[in-house]
C-alpha cells in the first residue's frame, strides 16, 4: 500500500506522474482527504496543479533537513551527510529516524544485541519499572480502584525520584 506523500498517514487514492522538460518523471501519491483539503475535486484538477503539490512537498522535505539541528553539538543532518560522522551521542537521538535506514543498510539490523554497560542496564531497568507502574496506575484509575491508584502513584514518585 502506498501512503499519501503529503500527510504520510492515509492510503493514496491516486498517483500523478509529471514529466519535466528533460523528460524526468516525478511521481506523486496523494490521498482523497489531502486532495479535497487543497480544493482539488477532479483528477484533471490534480493533473493541472501537480506542480503546486510537488513544490509544497519539496519545501516540506527541505524544511525538515534544514530545521533539525542536534541540540547538543549543533550538527545538522546535512552536515552528517557531508562528513559521514556524527557529532555526539545526542545526534543519535536527534536523527534516529533518518539514521535507521542507513544503519539497516550497514548492519542488516537496527537492534543492538550483545554487551551493554552495567550502568546502562540499570538505567534501562529503572525506565522499564516507571513505564510498568504508569500502565498499572492508568488501569487502577479506569477500574476506579483509588486506594491502589494512590499507592501506585507513591511508588511511581519514588521510582521517578530515583531516576
Amino acid at each position, binding site marked *: 500500500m502506498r501512503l499519501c506523500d503529503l500527510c504520510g498517514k492515509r492510503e493514496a487514492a491516486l498517483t500523478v506522474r509529471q514529466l519535466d522538460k528533460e523528460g524526468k518523471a516525478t511521481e506523486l501519491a496523494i490521498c482523497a482527504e489531502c486532495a479535497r483539503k487543497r480544493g482539488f475535486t477532479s483528477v484533471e484538477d490534480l493533473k493541472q496543479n501537480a506542480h503546486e503539490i510537488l513544490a509544497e512537498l519539496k519545501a516540506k522535505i527541505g524544511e525538515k533537513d534544514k530545521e533539525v539541528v542536534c541540540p*547538543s*553539538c549543533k*550538527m545538522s543532518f546535512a552536515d552528517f551527510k557531508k*562528513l*559521514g*560522522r*556524527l*557529532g*555526539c*551521542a545526542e545526534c*543519535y*537521538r536527534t536523527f*534516529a529516524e533518518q*539514521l535507521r535506514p*542507513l*544503519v539497516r543498510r*550497514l*548492519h*542488516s*539490523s*537496527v*537492534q*543492538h*544485541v*550483545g*554487551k*551493554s*554497560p*552495567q*550502568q*546502562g542496564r540499570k538505567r*534501562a531497568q529503572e525506565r522499564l519499572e516507571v513505564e510498568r507502574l504508569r500502565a498499572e496506575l492508568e488501569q487502577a484509575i479506569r477500574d476506579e480502584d483509588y486506594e491502589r491508584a494512590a499507592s501506585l502513584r507513591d511508588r511511581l514518585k519514588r521510582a521517578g525520584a530515583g531516576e
Partner: protein
Amino acid sequence: MGLVPEKVGAWLSQSGPENDVVISTRVRLARNIEDVPFPGRMKPGDAELVLETIRWAFGEIGYLNKGQFFEDGMLTEPDGQYFVERHLASPDFIASKNRKGLFVSSDERVSVMVNEEDHLRVQALAAGLDFTTAFGLASELDEQLEKQLTYAYSEEFGFLTACPTNLGTGMRISVFLHLPALVLTREIDKVLRGAYAVGLVVRGIYGEGSETKGNLFQISNQRTLGQSEAEIIEVLMNVSRQIIDYERKAREYLMHNLRVEIEDKVFRSLGILRGARIISSEEATNLLATVRLGVVLGIINELNVSEVSQLLVLIRPANLQVLLGEKLSAVERDERRATFIRQKLVK
C-alpha cells in the same frame, strides 16, 4: 622511546595456535564518553578533558603501572609511525591533530588510543588464532573502565560511535593471515570472495588502503550491530579455520608436486637477505615472508617462526631507526637495514 625496541610484544614474540598460517588476532572496541562531543567535533578543552578523565580512570583501576602512557609529540609524524608499525596505533590516529594519548601495556598486548575517531579505542592482540586471549583482554579492560566512566550508549543502537559503521558492539575483530600457497596456486581470489560473501572485509596487513605485501592479509568483520560479540567472533573463527585448512592443503599440494621450486624460492629469498648490502623495506618484507613459509614448512630449520615474524616489524623504517638510535635518510636506512638483517640471519 619506551617499550623494548629490540623485541616486539608478546603477540608476536610468542607462539600461538595455528601459527603456521595465522600471525595474530586483534580485538578492538570503540567507546565514547557520554556528554562530550566525539573527537571530530570537540570544542577547545574537550580533548584535554577526555584525556584527563581517561588517565584518571586508568589510575582508579590500577592500570597506570601496567604500561606506559604516551602523549602528543611522540604520537605525531615521524615518531608515531613506530606505534603504527607495531600495530599499536592506527595511521589516522597518528595523522590527527587533536590532543591525544596512547596507552601501551608492558607486554604490548593491550593498547588504548584516546581521541582517535572515538574517545576510546581499546585494543588487544594475541599471537596466532586466539580470540579467547584477545577478546578476554579487551573486554576485561573495557568492563573495568566502564565502572569509572559513563559510556554513550542507547538500547537501540548499542555503543554510540562517531561513525555509524561501528555502532552496536563497537567491536572490530581481525585475523592476520599469511597465505602464500593460496596466492601461488591462484586460489586466493576464490577464498577471499567467500569471505566477502559472508560479510567479512579483506585488507592488507596495515589496514585500510594498504596493499597486501608479502602475501599477508587481514580479515575483519564488517557488521558490528545486530550480532552479539560471541556471534561475530564465531563467524570470523569459522571462516579463518576454513581458510587455514585451504592454505595448508595448498601447501601440501605444493610440497608434493613442486617441492624443488618451493625450496628454490625459499633458499633464494634467504640468500638475498643474507647477502644484500642495500634493501628496501618492501623487498625485505616480501623475502622475509617467504622465509617464514620455509620455516613453517620445515625447509629451513635454523630459524624459528617468531624470530622471522619479529623481523617483519623491526625492519620497518621507524622501528629500524629507533632500534639503531639514529635518524636516517631513506638511502641510509636501506643500507643499515641490510646490515641489520644480515646480522640476524647469518649464524
